[in-house]
Structure formats: C-alpha cells, structure tokens
C-alpha cells in the first residue's frame, strides 16, 4: 500500500499573534508542523508498522521551517519526502494547494492520501476534501479511527452530527483525520539523526508539471484585506462570600443585566 501524507508548516499557535496596521507581526513567531498533520503522519507511520505500507510526505512551502517540518516527518518514520517550493504558491488558497497536491498524487500513484482535517493557521478544513474532488476519489473527513480491511478497503470511523459514522472506503481514497485519532509520537534520537541525512525531493512548480495559471495561483478566488486583533476579554465581577447569597446575586444579574435566562 502506498500512502501519501500532506503536511503544512504553520505558525505555532501557542504564541500570541499581534496585529499591526492590518497585518500580522512576524517578529518572534515560530513555525511548526500543523497539529492535525502530525496526527496524519502518525497514522501513516502506524500503517507502515502494522501493514508494511510505503509512506511519502509532501509539503508545499520553502525555507528552513518547511525543511525542519519535513525532517520531523522523517524522524517520526516517513520514508520519502517531497517538497514543492515555489514562491508563486505562497498566497495560494486551499483550492490552489489541492490542485498542486493533485499533480503530486498523479505523479506517484498512491493508494491512500491521509491529511490533517484542517490547518491551524487557516482553520479552513478544505484542502483534503477538495483534493479528493479534483482526483475524483472517495473521501472521508474528520476520521477518528482507521482499520485496514484488505488491499482495497479500509474501515473509517468519523465523527458526524448524530454520532460516529462507520464507513467502508474503497481505495484509492482520501482521508482527513482529527487530532483525536492518535497521540503522535515524539521523534527520538535515532530518528532525528537519520532524518538529518535523508534526502528530500525538492521541486518547483514547473518541475512538477503545471503552470501557476493551471493551479489557479494567478487568479485568487479571494483576498485577505486585513487582519484584525480580536477584542480582548476583560475580567468581569468576582463574587466571594456566602455561597447562597452570592449565587442568588449572580443568577439575578444573569437574568437581569445579561438576560441569558
């Protein structure tokens, strides 16, 4: 079984994000592997360990941060790495990225694509599903469990609106995973050392095949006009004292001032 995992390099959401003049302040920010993609990588590596799958990781982006993220994937156990480094893709939205990934998939001929269900910078949750649409492959999103049935079928559990949906998926297919699917392993010393030396197949878009027009990078469907800092929540009133008294007080306020009851 050949598995393709997609991984995005994103801002570390543990940090504060500052906005200045409608733009995000880059200073002090650090970039890490998207948490959902970490779970995707872990899923792929586990399938390698239990089912002997061959795993490949692809990431769209450039610079040291993307390189570090790909090598983290190696350290976790991914065998092959592809990097699509093209500045023209820097502003690409989910549909552009999905079209690029479509080309990567077509080049390699995989049985299963596993991606994180969303990226922690855009919070979109679209790329994986769009990729499936462009490839005309079946897709299950928000997966919380995957079980291999045979060479051509996997059983996927996804969190739906009315409960956990159990779906039989025919390969080749695309699965987007939620973080609750597994606890991604921490890269260990041996893996890290090996990852340092491993080669990454780096391509710009032209080497991959399509032009920027073909993937829609020249005609963005939308444009971020500005970034705004959300309103800081301030502390309200704190009540200490006799439990019955203060609780009654608060409930009265909630019903009266706040009108939530």
């Amino acid at each position: 079984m050949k598995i393709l995992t997609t991984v995005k390099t994103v801002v570390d959401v543990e940090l504060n994000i500052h906005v200045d003049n409608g733009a995000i302040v880059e200073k002090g920010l650090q970039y890490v592997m998207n948490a959902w993609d970490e779970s995707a990588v872990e899923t792929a590596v586990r399938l390698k360990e239990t089912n002997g799958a061959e795993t490949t990781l692809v990431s769209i982006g450039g610079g040291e941060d993307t390189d570090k993220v790909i090598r983290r994937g190696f350290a976790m156990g991914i065998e092959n790495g592809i990097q699509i480094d093209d500045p023209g893709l820097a502003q690409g939205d989910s549909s552009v990225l999905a079209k690029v990934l479509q080309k990567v998939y077509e080049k390699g001929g995989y049985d299963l694509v596993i991606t994180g269900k969303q990226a922690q910078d855009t919070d979109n949750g679209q790329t994986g599903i769009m990729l499936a649409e462009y490839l005309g492959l079946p897709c299950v999103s928000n997966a919380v469990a995957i079980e291999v049935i045979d060479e051509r079928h996997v059983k996927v559990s996804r969190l739906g609106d009315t409960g956990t949906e159990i779906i039989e998926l025919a390969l080749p297919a695309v699965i987007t995973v939620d973080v609750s699917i597994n606890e991604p392993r921490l890269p260990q010393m041996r893996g890290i050392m090996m990852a340092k030396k491993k080669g990454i197949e780096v391509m710009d878009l032209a080497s991959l095949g399509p032009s920027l027009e073909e993937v829609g990078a020249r005609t963005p469907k939308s444009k971020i006009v500005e970034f705004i800092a959300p309103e800081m929540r301030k502390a309200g009133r704190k009540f200490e004292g006799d439990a019955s008294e203060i609780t009654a007080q608060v409930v009265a306020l909630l019903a009266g001032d706040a009108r939530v009851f």
Partner: protein
Amino acid sequence: MTTKVLVVADIKHGKLKSSTPELLSKARAIGAETAVVAIGSHMESLIPRLADAGADTQYVADDPGLELFSAGPWASCVAEAAGRFAPDMIWFGFSESGKAVAPRVAARLDAACATDITDVKLEDGRVEITRPAITNKVIQRVQVNAAKLVAVVRAGAFEATQGIGGTQNVVMLSPPAPDAGAVIKEIVSDAGGEIDLADAGIVVSVGRGVKDQAGVALAKQLADDLTAGFGSSRAMVDAGFMPHSKQVGQTGKIVAPNLYIAIGISGAIQHLAGMKGSKVILAVNKDPEAPIFSVADYGIVGDLFEVVPILREEIKKIRS
C-alpha cells in the same frame, strides 16, 4: 442584479435546526433572494417549515437512500439545486455535515470557499466576509473575487428574524447516485438527543475541579436543567471522564454560546481559546486566583459542590 443566496438546511433527527432560519434571515437582511435545499428522507412534515424559515424556493431531495448522511450524494444534491437556482452564495450551517460537503460543492462549482464565517457584507457588488483564523487568535476580513462563494457559517453568528416567512415553491430534486466508494455501514449514535456544543445557546463545561464521575453528574444536572450543551476541559477528557468530542479548547471544539458556564475549570490558555468568544461567561471555582476569572463576566468563588445545587435552585426560581 439581486444577489441570490442558497441556504443548505440543517436537519437533525428530522428537525430543522436553528441555523437555517438564522442564515435565511441574514440573506434577506443583505437584500438577497433566498432559496433553501433540504436533503434527507421522510421529508413531508418538514417541507412546509422550509418556506416559513425564510426561503422563497425550496429544493428538496427526499429519498430513502438519503437516510444516512454521506458527503458525496449530499454534495450532488446541493450542486443540482445550485445548477437550477444559480446562486451567488451557498451557505451551510456549522455542522460536521456542512464542513464535509461545502468544500466539495466549492470544488465542483470552482467557487471560493470560506469556513467559519462570522459576517458577510455586500460592498460595491463584491462579497466581503469576516472570519476568525489561527485558532481564533486573529480575525480576517476577506474580499471574494470569484463569481461564487460557498461558506460555512459559525454557529450563532446570525440572528433569526421572527416571523420571517417565505413563499411555498417546492422543487423536487432527483435522488443522487449513492457513493460507491464510501459506503456508510452504520452510525453509532451519541447518547440520544445530545445537544450539539457548536450550536447550543448555553454550554455547561466541567474541569478538574469536579474531581470524578459524581461531580460530572452534578454538573450534567445543571446542563439538563438549562437544556444546555455539556462540554469539558482537556483535563477531564485526558482523565477519561469525558469523551474527546466534548472537549472545548484549542485542539477540541471552539464554541461561542450565549452563556458559557465553567464549573471547576481553572482556565488554562488552551481552554480559554475554545470559549472566550462566548457572549457571557460564568465561572465557578474554589480558587480566587484561577485564570478563568480573568475572562469571566461573573465569577463565583466557592466550592462547586455547594454552589451548583444552589445555582439550580435559583435558576428554577427565576424561570417560574
């Protein structure tokens, strides 16, 4: 040219959820012509409601094959309705189904796609949306350049106009082909009738302070009294007292109800990220220095095992 908005009806257990009239009201408010597409089985009782919710055309796909949700067929139905209605925008309510279907529709129609939008405006004939990003740490104002927009709307972002009403104009859609590649075998349902955290008006959440199953049950009683969604901090999920699907926080669910009641939650940054968008926050905690009090509008410092029963009493009194 009037803007046309197609709203995908949010149906759970045969009932229309509040997001549908909310989205339709907003569409009307920005001066759009509205239509709704409803997909499922045994739809007869639902169809009259669709017009009342604020749609002037109702596209209905009613087929036994649509009893269980499957993203592919759903996307086909929406695409078919879109093909007939030719909307400028297609809006989904915030649900797992919505999130699974919207990108497919956007891909098929080559439309722009935006998830979790909190506002939409028409500016000089262009659509402008507002949405949060980077796990709610920043807000984006986005200008849509593409001809069409498919959007998933954040729960509670829009308000329903009372008695909005619409024209009954039902168009039946042909049943879509089932998805041969992704066959849904069964649905293991949540404890029946569980209230969705994402669109609950009130959410009651538990943290480590409730200590154990008995504490969880105590808080659940309060939630039931209020017909509220029941959520959890990461600590209680990690400790095994609550399922991950109930986790509110950075790697869990982001909620913005009218009232968020945090019981025994200290207020770690990751949890706050998930609920600080709530309109009103009430916190109950023994520790006066707990960080939750820095975001709570009303904070009760006390032993939750004492306070929660009193809360229930007082709420009962107020309601009667």
